[in-house]
């Protein structure tokens, strides 16, 4: 039975690889959110609400060492003093933080040792998501650390990675098994005082991924993790920590989907990346969480803090993101370029439709000499949505010969949406060269007609034009992801052009 499935998937995959990118843009049959279902697994919940007791319970439940409990509590106490940020281009009803569950885990005494032990219903969930673990394992050479509501349930390829000294595991496991690494690096890039949501995350984070690449090792496969928000009213607080030691390389893929619900859900993840001398981290995200329906009801609030530090010389951090989901997105994957000759990159496609709101961008903080950063942001607004790029490029006084180039374009589809660009350039060293450019364009009727006249339907035409516009960013994604991302764009744009 399983075998059969595998073969089918193989055929699917071959077809996919053979077909070119336009194929991926072909209408995906189902107009509604494809991943809208609820997995019926018994959940183990803590009481609603947030106080020191809950924070201690989370820490105790996870059998964390003392330093972790203390760190969580410090964060919680700090959080009590903070207030929610207000942004001019994001509007949403206030979140009642005492009406959320801060911990939910599938009821299982011991973690599964192999895929066979994984709850079959969970596996089915992944299948529906298009992330069949065993197939990935067999076909794509991707190790998947799958997270459903807070607790990692399956980790594959552990053996092979272990041999190379690579640690790829749930962060809860890393806290127990590699406390020295966690203690050394956790909170060094995003301190627990950083911002309202990051501080909240520090206090209550449930699980997430941990990656450590030892010196001189090039991780042989794309590490991949799929996040899902499943239980109703569960705020999800993922924490990811990736350390690339000297002269190492890793590419990490994060994919996110969530089932459909008529209730807004909060997601406040924190991702920290650390690249030491000559190391490179490539972090790619495709985010297609439920965006709410056409009337703007429901959808995920995605308030994420992602930041990397190029701590060593010649290090490089590259963020690539394709954001098509969530009712509200608020995220600025950033790079602190501390090491001399370090490089930061940010490639982003953010697509909003209906009533979605996205406020996203990056911060490039140049501290070291000869540091370089590149920002390529492609915003696409449709329906009644609002899409903002907000970015900071800072060249500090001691950063000699820093270079930055930013290109932030907006594409508007229809006359009901908004596209905004807020770059901040702060330069304190004259040897810097900083350049920002932005343009606004629309999908023109001429372009659509030209494609129509060659036999291509309007829906396909829009998909092609939009993908062409975002090509520079898609090229940064691993092939597998790029195809999926382009398909997602077409789905997300359905009905946006009449």
């Amino acid at each position: 039975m399983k075998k059969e499935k595998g073969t089918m998937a193989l055929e699917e995959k071959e077809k996919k690889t053979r077909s070119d990118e336009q194929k991926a843009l072909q209408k995906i049959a189902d107009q509604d959110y494809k991943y809208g279902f609820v997995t019926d697994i018994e959940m183990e919940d803590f009481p609603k609400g947030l106080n020191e007791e809950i924070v201690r319970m989370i820490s105790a439940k996870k059998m964390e060492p003392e330093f972790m409990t203390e760190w969580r509590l410090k964060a919680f106490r700090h959080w009590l003093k903070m207030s929610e940020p207000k942004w001019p281009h994001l509007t949403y009803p206030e979140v009642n933080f005492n009406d959320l569950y801060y911990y939910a885990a599938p009821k299982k005494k011991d973690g599964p040792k192999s895929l066979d032990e994984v709850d079959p219903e969970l596996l089915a969930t992944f299948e529906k998501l298009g992330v069949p673990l065993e197939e990935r394992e067999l076909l794509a050479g991707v190790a998947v650390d799958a997270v459903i509501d807070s607790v990692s349930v399956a980790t594959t390829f552990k053996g092979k990675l272990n041999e190379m000294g690579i640690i790829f595991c749930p962060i809860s496991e890393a806290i127990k098994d590699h406390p020295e690494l966690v203690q050394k690096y956790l909170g060094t890039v995003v301190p627990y005082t950083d911002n309202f949501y990051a501080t909240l995350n520090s206090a209550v984070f449930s699980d997430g991924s941990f990656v450590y690449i030892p010196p001189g090792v090039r991780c042989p496969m794309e590490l991949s993790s799929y996040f899902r928000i499943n239980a109703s009213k569960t705020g999800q607080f993922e924490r990811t920590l990736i350390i690339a030691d000297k002269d190492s390389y890793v590419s990490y893929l994060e994919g996110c989907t969530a089932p459909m619900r008529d209730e807004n859900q909060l997601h406040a993840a924190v991702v920290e990346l650390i690249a030491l001398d000559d190391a490179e981290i490539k972090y790619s995200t495709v985010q297609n969480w439920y965006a709410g329906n056409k009337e703007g009801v429901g959808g995920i609030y995605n308030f994420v803090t992602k930041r990397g530090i190029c701590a060593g010389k010649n290090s490089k951090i590259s963020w690539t993101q394709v954001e098509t989901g969530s009712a509200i997105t608020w995220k600025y994957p950033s790079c602190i370029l501390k090491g001399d000759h370090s490089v930061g990159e940010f490639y982003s496609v953010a697509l909003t439709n209906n009533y979605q709101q996205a406020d996203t961008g990056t911060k490039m903080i140049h501290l070291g000499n000869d540091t370089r950063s590149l920002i390529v942001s492609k915003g696409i607004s449709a329906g009644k949505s609002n899409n903002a790029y907000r970015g900071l490029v800072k060249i500090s006084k001691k950063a000699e010969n820093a270079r930055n180039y930013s290109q932030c374009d907006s594409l508007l589809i229809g006359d009901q949406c908004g596209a905004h660009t807020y770059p901040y350039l702060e330069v304190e060293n004259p040897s810097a060269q900083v350049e920002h450019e932005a343009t606004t364009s629309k999908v023109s009727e001429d372009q659509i007609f030209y494609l129509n006249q060659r036999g291509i339907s309007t829906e396909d035409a829009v998909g092609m034009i939009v993908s062409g516009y975002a090509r520079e960013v898609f090229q940064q994604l691993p092939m597998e992801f790029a195809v999926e991302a382009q398909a997602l764009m077409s789905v997300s744009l359905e009905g946006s052009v009449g």
Partner: protein
Amino acid sequence: MLSIKNLNVSAEGKTILNGLNLEVNKGEIHAIMGPNGSGKSTLAHVLSGRSGYQVESGSASYNGLDLLDMLPEIRAREGIFLAFQYPIEIPGVNNTSFLKKALNEIRKHRGEEELDAIDFLQLIKKQMQLVEMKEDLLRRPVNQGFSGGEKKRNEILQMAVLDPKLAILDETDSGLDIDALRIVAGGVNKLRSKDNAFVVITHYQRLLDYIVPDFVHVLSDGKIIKSGTKELALELEDRGYDWLTNEPETVA
């Protein structure tokens, strides 16, 4: 194949085509000439389904179908091809994938099997020789960074690949030097057959030295005021349009 009867078309409240009649049969080449603003390009646009025009009255049937009632992509799939006067640039969209997509949409419509990448590349390479196009243009985005001549050759390449039944060339000669003109015309001549037809819209006679029409029509104020054979084009070259437009109405 194409039968236009008493077609009246307006745009933004202004009448542009004013009782136009035209019959095109398989295997024929029709040249439509006329002064600026006579409605030549409008005719091309209306036949291919561009928005922004109001058909007030009259009809256009194409192989027995009501042409004016069809979406632009359906007309294309039914075999109508418009070579644009100003080909549109589409940033980031690869010229080859675009054309492959277009061809396969048309093949699907005809009930033919879609071409895979290898067969398609063979086809396109063969047709490229027809228009002497450089191969790197295939890898570039549609019409972006193309010179004026390259854009027009790209139009003819698309025509060669899509193999239309009725091709409308909208001032394809404008902005072309004599070599490019020769190449473009050569492409058209190789494609003409007893099964297809061409409507060649042009302002100048010189294109007709290369693409020899069976009929020449003079369009003025939205209707055809004179029809003839290729000799009419030469006469127009000699005498301009004034002698026609100033004459009392002649029956087309």
